[in-house]
């Protein structure tokens, strides 16, 4: 991560004008803390890097959680980073701490995701919608309309749309670690991205893309590649990877969220 005053986005400037840390002082404090177990040095480090936490927490502010709570969660990540940071490695503390803090924030949202209680009626409806999309696609040889899905299972179109929202609420997390058996375990999008590619024009730095992609499982990368690079529809991707269309939809949304967070954060 490159932290330079000129590259700090507006939101961060509004919150904290100073995002450049005193490297010399940081080294001194770490030395004190490591060699003498000096708690005061540790506290000073925490205070010193609190604005990094505030900045990173602000990147998650649009998710309906109070920013103060996010700062608290992020601070736990900061403390973990301070305690684990290996000063003998030639890496800036901010570079080391950022993924730890972001990771803590993500875990917070993930745990909350688990806690979302979806009524049984909606769970069942979502399951039926999911099944009917696949069955109708096979029967019609095209992606069915929402009305067709509603008619097929005997509910209203509102119910179907609600089910699409619900499926994300409680399935988002369970996708972690889920793999299909189509060989996409080894898929890496980087092998397919050329230097003159459209995404490279956007990202313009392979290292940055590489580090953002680390957060995606091979199957997620594969779905992303097929949808945005190959221009396949969700129906086509579902058929190719032998997963349901709803799964494709959820994987796509997840990959975009992850990329958005990591690419933008890396850009700091």
């Amino acid at each position, binding site marked *: 991560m490159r932290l330079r005053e*000129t*590259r*700090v*986005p*507006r*939101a961060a400037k*509004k919150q904290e004008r100073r995002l450049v840390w005193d490297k010399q002082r940081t080294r001194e404090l770490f030395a004190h803390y490591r060699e003498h177990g000096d708690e005061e040095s540790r506290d000073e480090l925490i205070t010193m890097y609190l604005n990094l936490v505030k900045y990173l927490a602000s990147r998650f*502010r*649009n*998710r*309906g959680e109070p920013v103060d709570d996010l700062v608290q969660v992020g601070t736990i990540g900061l403390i973990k980073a301070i305690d684990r940071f290996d000063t003998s490695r030639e890496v800036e503390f901010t570079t080391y701490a950022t993924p730890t803090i972001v990771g803590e924030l993500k875990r917070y949202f993930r745990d909350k995701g688990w806690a979302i209680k979806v009524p049984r009626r909606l769970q069942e409806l979502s399951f039926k919608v999911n099944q009917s*999309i696949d069955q109708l696609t096979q029967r*019609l040889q*095209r*992606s*069915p*309309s*929402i*009305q*067709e*899905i509603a008619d097929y299972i005997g509910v209203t*179109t*509102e119910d*179907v*749309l*609600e089910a*699409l*929202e619900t499926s994300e609420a409680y399935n988002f997390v369970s996708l972690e670690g889920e793999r299909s058996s189509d060989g996409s375990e080894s898929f890496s999008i980087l092998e397919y991205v050329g230097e003159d590619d*459209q*995404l490279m*024009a*956007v990202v313009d730095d392979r290292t940055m893309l590489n580090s953002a992609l680390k957060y995606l499982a091979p199957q997620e990368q594969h779905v992303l590649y097929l*949808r*945005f690079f190959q*221009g396949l*529809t*969700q*129906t086509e991707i579902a058929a190719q990877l032998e997963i349901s*269309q709803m799964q494709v*939809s959820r994987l*796509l*949304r997840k990959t*975009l969220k992850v*990329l*958005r967070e990591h*690419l*933008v954060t890396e*850009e*700091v």
Partner: protein
Amino acid sequence: MGTDHIVLTVPARGEYAKTVRVTVAELASRLGMSYDGVDDMRLAAEEAFVFACERAGEDGEVTFELEVAEDTLVLSVGPLPDACPSPGDEFSESYASFILHAVCDEFGIEHGEHSCTLRLVKRADAVAGDARA
């Protein structure tokens, strides 16, 4: 069927992403769009909303104007502050463009003197036309 206009203004906060997604999905579904098309529009609406929230700021609002024609849904998001004070904003713009180009039939960012507006066009797939509500 002529063109119907729907205007939706929501606070620029993530908790309203669902409101935006559901509204856009409902309108896409009215046009008889396929599940694929409806889901693309949900994804597009969310990407556009996130982009808009970054510009509008925490206390701002985001306005969606939807034009519903016989087989086309046009979604305009804005006007939004046009300032690009940091490379991060430029990046966010090109990233949003990349995603939105892929899921919409047409996508563009119209720049005014001090503002910009996202414009997304999605056409209903002809095959599902019979299911039009």
